[in-house]
């Protein structure tokens, strides 16, 4: 019963703040509501008994990616910040497409027959995740490491620009 109430509370926070991210006209406010969405999703991970992923969500999304997006806003926006996040001319087409996709997803989910398992969830997921990453998924793990290195070097090179270093 308590978990039901907590789920609906978190769901309302997530849906409301995600709508705010899209609908607000000030891009700084959008970025702040994006942080609220990420924290709400992290609470949902706690409810799904994914303790490690909840911590990673807080650190990487609410910590790093949100700050990176705010940096991007601060380095680029010109003109009136109150109207920095407007819709383009495809507003209504995009709304129809998104709503149609949601109705389609909802129909498919509700009409599918899923085999729910009644086994208890793992007590702690950190150890099993470490085992999986270093045995079955070791090649994707190393590829992800290389991807992060390449992305970091690429981001530095791109953001530094054409000019010669002083």
């Amino acid at each position, binding site marked *: 019963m308590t*978990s039901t109430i907590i*789920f609906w509370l978190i769901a309302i926070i997530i*849906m409301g703040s*995600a709508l705010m*991210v*899209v609908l607000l006209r000030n891009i700084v406010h959008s*970025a702040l509501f*994006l942080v609220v*969405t*990420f924290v709400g999703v992290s609470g*949902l*991970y706690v*409810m*799904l008994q*994914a303790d490690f*992923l909840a911590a*990673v969500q807080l650190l*990487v*999304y609410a910590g*790093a*990616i949100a700050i*990176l*997006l705010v*940096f*991007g806003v601060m*380095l*680029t926006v010109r003109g009136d910040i109150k109207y920095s*996040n*407007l*819709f*383009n001319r*495809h507003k209504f087409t995009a709304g129809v*497409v*998104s*709503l149609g*996709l*949601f109705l389609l*997803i*909802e129909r498919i*989910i509700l009409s599918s027959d*899923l*085999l*729910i398992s009644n*086994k208890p*969830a*793992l007590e702690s*997921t950190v150890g099993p*995740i470490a085992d*999986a990453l270093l045995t079955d998924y070791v090649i*994707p793990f190393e590829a*992800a490491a290389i*991807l*992060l290195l390449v*992305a*970091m070097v*690429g*981001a*530095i*090179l791109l*953001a530094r620009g054409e000019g010669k270093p002083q």
Partner: protein
Amino acid sequence: MITLYHYLILGGFLFCIGLYGALAKRSAVAVLMGIELMLNAVNINLLAFNRFLNPGDVTGHVFAIFVIVVAAAEVAVGLALVINIYRDRMTTQLDDFDWLKW
């Protein structure tokens, strides 16, 4: 009682909001925010499937970690591109990025 269907529909809703943001926004940074929302929705789906269909395993968790890695790389390179284009064009509005039009 909260079932798998609740989580899946919440994930679907979040994905569609993110898609709307990515399609209908004028600013490149706002489009990146929409993409982040979509990736979060996918992670909710992966963890919910892992919790309800195969709770003794961590396959969904590992996939969610890889999604987070790719999201971090994507947003870092995307923002570097936006800043680089801004230096050249003095704008971040996607409608002004029209080099490939003839």
